């Protein structure tokens, strides 16, 4: 199955409640995917800051003490104020340089590290286990932010591992979560690998994320990239894609996988099931609708 809950806050006065609202949504989709889970939060103070690149690394233990990692990064990136922080089961590395440079420095310092999130706005956290425990371990409830995305996974196409959890964040501030399965992902993966794309996992959704990133790099906007995905990918999917300032939802044309959207002046929320939206403020008067099959919906902050 898999469960998705995503929230874009239009009203800045709701930003302090982002974590608690997303947590209440997540709680209702646990049944859909109790294997593992992941979170992406945007513009959360204490995790990211504008003008500074932040990388999210899988796991709290990178095989080196935090002070050693910080020192090694400081040596590689002098006067970039490199900082390392462990949040739950995630290591966040930041420095006042471009993301590309920081990736290089981190890869040199921690060659085994898996980068699960990158950008100036997003922090990505994922782990194996009960989704609410993962959320609690990372302190989601108290997080403020502009957007949040969560996914609970019932694995079908690849093993239950933290690396196979969603979201997949493979370009700056870009995240993708998926309910469903791609059936031709191996073919598309081979084509992307031929173009020089490097993969972190065997997961089918990662192929979708890498494909979107590659389309965006070639100049597509988010909507066009998702339309192109619909032409190339076969299988079942409800996808949510977020960028630094936008959110998109698309379902495959057969629309086996559920999705429901609630929109008010204050927020846009998307979830696999209505019950995840039921506790949102002002839901009684929200515009509630199911996204139509094969249609790309986007909202920008």
């Amino acid at each position: 199955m898999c469960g998705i809950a995503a929230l874009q806050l239009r009203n800045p006065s709701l930003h302090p409640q982002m974590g608690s609202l997303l947590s209440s949504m997540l709680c209702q989709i646990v049944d859909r995917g109790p294997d593992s889970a992941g979170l992406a939060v945007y513009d959360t103070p204490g995790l990211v800051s504008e003008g500074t690149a932040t990388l999210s690394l899988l796991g709290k233990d990178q095989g080196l003490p935090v002070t050693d990692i910080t020192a090694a990064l400081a040596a590689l990136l002098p006067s970039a104020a490199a900082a390392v922080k462990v949040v739950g089961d995630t290591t966040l590395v930041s420095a006042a340089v471009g993301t590309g440079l920081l990736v290089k420095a981190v890869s040199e310092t921690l060659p085994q590290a898996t980068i699960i999130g990158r950008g100036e706005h997003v922090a990505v956290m994922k782990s194996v286990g009960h989704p609410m425990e993962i959320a609690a371990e990372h302190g989601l409830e108290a997080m403020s932010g502009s957007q949040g995305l969560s996914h609970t996974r019932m694995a079908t196409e690849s093993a239950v591992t933290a690396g196979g959890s969603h979201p997949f964040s493979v370009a700056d501030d870009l995240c993708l979560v998926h309910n469903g399965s791609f059936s031709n992902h191996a073919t598309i993966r081979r084509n992307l690998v031929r173009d020089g794309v490097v993969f972190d996992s065997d997961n089918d959704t990662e192929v979708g994320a890498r494909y979107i990133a590659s389309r965006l790099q070639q100049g597509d906007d988010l909507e066009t990239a998702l339309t192109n995905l619909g032409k190339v990918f076969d299988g079942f999917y409800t996808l949510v894609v977020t960028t630094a300032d936008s959110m998109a939802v698309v379902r495959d044309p057969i629309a086996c996988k559920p999705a429901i959207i609630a929109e008010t002046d204050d927020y846009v929320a998307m979830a696999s099931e209505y019950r995840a939206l039921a506790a949102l403020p002002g839901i009684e008067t929200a515009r509630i609708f199911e996204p139509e099959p094969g249609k790309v919906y986007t909202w920008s902050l």
Partner: protein
Amino acid sequence: MVTLTAPETAHTSTATAGTASAGATLIDGATLIDLAGSSVRDLNQALHQATDGQAWTVKTPGGKHSLAVGIDADIDVTIDGHAGYYAAGMHQKGEVTINGNAGVGLAENIMSGKVHVTGDASQSAAATGHGGLVVIDGNAGARCGISMKGVDIVVGGNIGHMSAFMAQAGRLVVCGHAGEALGDSIYEARIYVRGTVASLGADCIEKPMTAEHLDELAGLLAAAGRTEDPADFRRYGSARNLYHFSVHNSTSY
């Protein structure tokens, strides 16, 4: 407010009477269950022990799944808010009204009685329904009436793709538009659509509207409380090329 001490169900097990008294109150002749404090299991158990003529109101449904399923008494159940998956499934008697939207599989396998949704219904509404009437004032998603076997469905808005797939018997009325592949592999169900049809499925064709069909449609619209003119609808049904229709079986449908 009066705490319900379950007068009608006093003869049943004490455990059940206990749950009913814990979660239900009686207001204006209707028994009220608030799902903010009661479980769906308690609600359904109480409804299964209800007796003909009772009225029940469900508050704070919160999109929970399997609300008011398997009702087998002539009762009126009103759900105030949005329901989750499989609401009013296996409905046998009485009427369920959902003042809001319904999730996947509304009134799945309904046998008789009536289910009414004032908002939208998600996909597979009234799937495999054998009888009764399902009224959706808003839109219905994909696969509405899939494999219907005698249920009548009236949709005020649009329906999604693959609706009435392998529909065997019953009537599907759509006041708005129909999505792709309407009535694919249809048997003897009848479909009436007022708006456009994106495409017809295999073996589904448009058929002439005769006086008999106008009468039938008028009756269905009236039963659903709608005011559309039957003359504005077109009728669709099986070309009977895909399955072996025998006129000897015509009364079976």
